[in-house]
Each structure stands twice: as C-alpha cells, then as structure tokens.
C-alpha cells in the first residue's frame, strides 16, 4: 500500500524496536484484516508461539493474558435472538462455538409419524417431513437419546396426535401446528400384533410403552409441551379429506438432520474498522458521505465554515468498498476488520433461550476436551 511507504533511512539510524512490543506495521498485520480495493490481505491468524521470537515478543498462549483481555458485551437479547460482541478470542474458537450451536446441540423434533389416514393431497412422506420441521417448545435436557434398540418411553419420546377433517360441503380448511395435540400418556394406536382385548380393564400395548404420564412429571405439569408457534401451516384439506396421525418426537442433533438444530442461524462477523488516513474536507467530504450506502460517514463542522468528514457509524459498515473505489480514495480511507472482535448473533428456534444455547455450546466443547484427556491417560 502506497501510504505505508516509509522514507528511506539507513538501517543504523533506525530507532531500536522496543522489546516486548511489535513494530506498528506488524502489529497492524497481526490484529487487522486489511480490506484493499482488490482483495482482503493479512487474513490469516498468526498463531505459532515463536512467530515473533526474534523480536522478543512472546506469541505463546498465556491464559492470564487471555483472561485480562477477553470481554463479552451483550447488545440485544430477546426470547428468540441475541447479539453480542466477543472480544479477545481467536477465530478458531468463535467458529467452534458457531459450529456446535448449529450441529451439535440437541433438541427434540418429530422423527416418526404413524399415519392412520391421510386422504389429503399432500403425500405421507412430505407431510412427515413438514411435521419434522415444526420447532417444539421443550427443554431437550430433560430427555434422553433413543438408540436403535430402545423402546419408546416417557424419557425419550414425546407423542403428538393430529386429527383434522374437512366436512363435505364446507370450504377448504388449513391444518395449523396448534392442532398437534400432546399425548402425555403416550401413543394411542395399538400395536398390530395385539389381539382384541378380552379383559377391558387391561390397556392394550401401543407403539410406546410409557410407565407414567408425562404431565405428572414436575417439569411438564404446568408447562405443557407443544409447538413453539401455533400458526405454522402443515397442510390444507379440501371437503371430505382427513388426516389422522400420530407424531413421535425424539432427541437428536443438527448433524443428523437440520430439524434438530436449535438455531435458525448462528453467525458472526468481525468488527469493521474505518479509518480516515488524511483529513477530508469540503466538497470531498460531501462526496465521501454520499458514497457510502449505509451512512458510515458524517460531516462535522470545524469552525470558519469548514467541514470535515468523520467516521460516525463504523459498525454498520458492510465493507462493500464503495468508499475506496476510483481515483485515489484508498489513500484517504482504510477499511479493516478487527481479527479478534466478533459480532456474534444467535437466533433460537424456540426450544431454549439464546443465552442458554451459547452456554451449552461452550460446555460441549469442554466435554470434547475432557474426553480426549481421559482417553489419552
């Protein structure tokens, strides 16, 4: 970059580099991604412990240093989404948290659909798939995984019933997710192998074997299980059409199927940094303000009718690089990204609150480490 060209100085006239600190241009390359008009440069993270050993700078992991510098700032937090800044952490860890949020945090989702009757136009398998994607409002930590040989019981399965019918002569109806009715006592469909009961008091065996009703458990007694949203369209029924089915939800993870992912999305971006390398005044300032589509720049009055451009909202910069296009604008404005400042956003699908999801994700990474430690020793 042009503006970083330093005047030629004989090497013995150079000032001594202070020990324990990197010279400014290296520090810039280490901590910032430089977004030039053709491509971003210095995108890599320098992690090797001895990378700056010749300059007397220790690049090794110092937990104390990490603890002093790591910060979290919550920007917004609602029931369903949150945005926070995570400052002073490496991209590999931020990315690990993101990956775990998407693929490795369990939730409950409909996995098996027993269809007794479906005369609607939507096919069984499509209907089952649509049901699977309905987010359920239930804490997955209260349930166990079901493996292949397990019988469905009250600890690993949630059963819903859906029975909807459009009468002849009436107009078409919508089947919405609020028609999924929770069956805390388990399946009501008797197994096909079951003989007609001789003794009317004994309950015939069904597709699940619940030992007790789920609503007798303290967690669910006044917190019934159901879909997170009541107005998700599942199917439409014409006159004379009917759907009767049972949906069995089990615990799973996003890496098996996206329906188990507890987040709609989880993503992060690095903090944009917009720096004015020179004073930009008068008409040029006006031009700069106009260039930016997201209004990063403002005009500031500096007295005597003179106007100067300032960077007012760098956070909203999308790094579209419009402001460094053409002429020699890149000598006036520098666009960078801060490598260790992550603007992290989590959108929950509703099973757990976003802040709980993040804490659980960090716990999962801890568990992974623990597993490796125990297996190596």
């Amino acid at each position, binding site marked *: 970059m042009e503006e970083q060209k330093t005047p030629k100085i004989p090497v013995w006239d150079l000032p001594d580099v202070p020990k324990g600190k990197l010279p400014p241009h290296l520090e810039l390359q280490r901590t910032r991604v430089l977004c030039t008009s053709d491509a971003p440069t210095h995108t890599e993270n320098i992690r090797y412990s001895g990378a700056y050993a010749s300059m007397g700078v220790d690049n090794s992991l110092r937990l104390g240093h990490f603890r002093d510098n790591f910060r979290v700032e919550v920007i917004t937090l609602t029931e369903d989404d949150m945005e926070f800044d995570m400052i002073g952490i490496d991209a590999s860890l931020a990315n690990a948290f993101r990956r775990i949020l998407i693929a490795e945090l369990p939730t409950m989702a409909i996995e098996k659909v027993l269809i007794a009757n479906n005369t609607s136009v939507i096919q069984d398998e499509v209907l089952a798939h649509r049901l699977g994607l309905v987010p359920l409002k239930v804490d997955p930590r209260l349930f166990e995984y079901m493996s292949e040989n397990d019988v469905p019981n009250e600890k690993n399965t949630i059963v819903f019933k859906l029975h909807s019918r459009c009468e002849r002569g009436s107009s078409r109806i919508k089947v919405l997710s609020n028609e999924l009715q929770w069956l805390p006592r388990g399946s009501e469909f008797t197994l096909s192998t079951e003989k007609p009961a001789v003794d009317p008091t004994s309950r015939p065996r069904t597709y699940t074997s619940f030992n007790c009703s789920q609503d007798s458990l303290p967690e669910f007694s006044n917190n019934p299980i159901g879909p997170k949203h009541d107005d998700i369209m599942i199917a439409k029924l014409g006159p004379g059409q009917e759907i009767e089915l049972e949906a069995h939800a089990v615990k799973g993870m996003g890496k098996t199927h996206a329906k188990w992912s507890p987040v709609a999305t989880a993503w992060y971006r690095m903090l944009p940094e917009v720096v004015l390398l020179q004073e930009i005044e008068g008409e040029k300032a006006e031009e700069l303000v106009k260039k930016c589509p997201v209004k990063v720049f403002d005009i500031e009055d500096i007295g005597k009718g003179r106007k100067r451009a300032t960077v007012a909202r760098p956070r909203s910069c999308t790094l579209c690089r419009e402001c460094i296009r053409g002429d020699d604008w890149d000598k006036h404005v520098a666009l960078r990204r801060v490598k260790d400042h992550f603007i992290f956003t989590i959108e929950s699908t509703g099973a757990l609150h976003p802040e709980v999801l993040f804490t659980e994700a960090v716990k999962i990474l801890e568990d992974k480490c623990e597993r*490796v430690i125990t297996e*190596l020793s």
Partner: protein
Amino acid sequence: MLSCKSRVVKLSRFVLGIDCEEVRRAQDAGPRLTRRRRHYRPATGNSVMELGSYQDQSQATFSLTDEDHTLANSLRFTLNQDPRVTFCGYSIPHPSDARVNIRVQTTGDPASEVLKDSCQDLMLICQHVRSTFDQAVVEFKNKKGPDAMNIEP
C-alpha cells in the same frame, strides 16, 4: 515411521435407513410407519488412537473418531501456541468417515502429554468464556430490567 493402515470406512451412520419390512408390516394393519433412522448419540468408548513410535514419543498422530473441525481446529490453535510444539496440523482423511487426524511434533516432550495440556488449556479458556458470558448476560438483564425483554426468570 507413521503407518496409517487403510480401514474399512463405515458409512452406516449417514445412510437414512428405511426398514422396508417394518413399513410393510405397519402398513398391513393400521398406521403406516413412514421412516426409521439410526439415531446419532454422542460418542462414548475408546476413540482416540495414538499412532507413533515407542522410540520417539515426541511425534505422533492422534486419530480421533466422531470429531471434526470443531475440536481439531480449536486444538490446533492451542497446540500452536504452546512453545514446546514444533509442528502441528490436522486433516480429515475422508468426509464420510467421522474421523480427524491431529499431527503433533514437539521439541522433546511426549506428544500425548502436550496434546493433553492443550486440551486442558482449551478447557480453561472455555470455562472463562462461559463465566464471562454469563456475567455479561446477567449485567445486561439487570440493566434492562427483566420484564423489558420477556425473559423468564
């Protein structure tokens, strides 16, 4: 020195199994069973394999099953920041095999010890992230007032 024998790649987890026999049986009488899938559950059991030599313990490849970039890249980060490590890297030999190989070469210490220390460091980092995050959330909730965000107590 390092031998990675080829292994039979087990694909079963990634196959969405529909048990036709069962579907038919269920169809014959009453409700139709639409699908059946093997459930993934977190791995248990011995699944870290060390490939190295007894003569020189300072270099080894660790083969971790049921792990991916999530753990391997984080471990590469902490390993690289350890001054005892001269080289480390990881690879996923085949995308349909849930396995990752982590290569560690050290200045002399046993590679497994160094890897263990790195795991320990990563755990400490995670614990700090978690406590800082929880604290920030609590501060935010106190500042905004709990009902402003309809967050359950």
